[in-house]
């Protein structure tokens, strides 16, 4: 199966797969206290804001939104990436210090979502992945 093949070389293959438990992932996150760029795009950005608000309270993990890409460890592509915005995102990404991570949130950032077929102005997710250098193609999938 295609997925199992990718297990052999999880860090090298284009979006590789690492098996683990949810606890491992959370512990890894807690140990790092990643700071993320305060940056939202479309309706996913509303969910993203809720992440930081009282109900989900991401700050309890030590994750703090940074307003400058130079202080951010990762960038959350929270929403529809229009072609006009794609250039700006790339620019923000390039300003971040290494190691840097990218998290694509929602179906728009992953594949184009509802704009898959008729979105003349939307960058489809596969393309977004190709724009980011190989070592940071650790794209997680959230809802959608």
């Amino acid at each position, binding site marked *: 199966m295609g997925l199992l093949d990718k297990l052999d070389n999880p860090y090298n293959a284009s979006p590789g797969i690492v098996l683990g438990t949810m606890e491992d992932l959370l512990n890894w996150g807690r140990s790092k206290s990643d700071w993320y760029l305060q940056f939202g795009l479309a309706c996913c950005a509303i969910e993203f804001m809720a992440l930081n608000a009282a109900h989900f309270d991401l700050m309890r993990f030590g994750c703090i939104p940074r307003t400058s890409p130079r202080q951010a460890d990762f960038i959350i592509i929270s929403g529809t990436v229009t*072609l006009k915005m794609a250039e700006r995102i790339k620019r923000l990404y390039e300003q971040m210090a290494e190691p840097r991570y990218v998290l694509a949130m929602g179906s728009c950032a992953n594949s184009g979502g509802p704009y898959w077929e008729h979105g*003349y*102005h939307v960058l489809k997710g596969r*393309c977004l992945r190709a724009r980011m250098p190989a070592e940071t193609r650790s794209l997680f999938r959230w809802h959608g």
Partner: protein
Amino acid sequence: MNAKEIFDSLKAELGDGIIELVEEQHVEPFIVVSADTILEASLVLRDEPQFLFDYMVNLSGVDAKDSFVVVYHLYSMKHKHRIVLKVILSDRENPTIPSVERVWKTANWHEREAFDMFGIIFDGHPNLIRILSPYDWEGYPLRKDYKTPETYKGLKVPY
């Protein structure tokens, strides 16, 4: 005032430039105005005490296949009445219409949007540039005959 009264008094004032009143069920009644008269009609509708349409709710473009249509939704805060104006531009190659930006400032961005999406030229607009698409975008995306470009600055567009 209802649509019929507005149409009658506008017609009495401006004559042939006010073409017809269309009152269909389920659709807001609208007045068809010629492109040459729209600026004058806008000033009358905004300023005369019986109309006082001080609020432009919306301005939008429509591609009607053989022509372009510009639609104006107006409302009066004072009299609490509303009206819809339509201007039909039959020249598809060069759709041009006077700008009403100096009548209602709201029209500034709305006209830029209609220009961006349909390529309608608003004569006299102070800053008629694209508002949503990138400035170097080619074509007018909401036209019926628009073809999605293959690439934009090296990014693949359709999948």
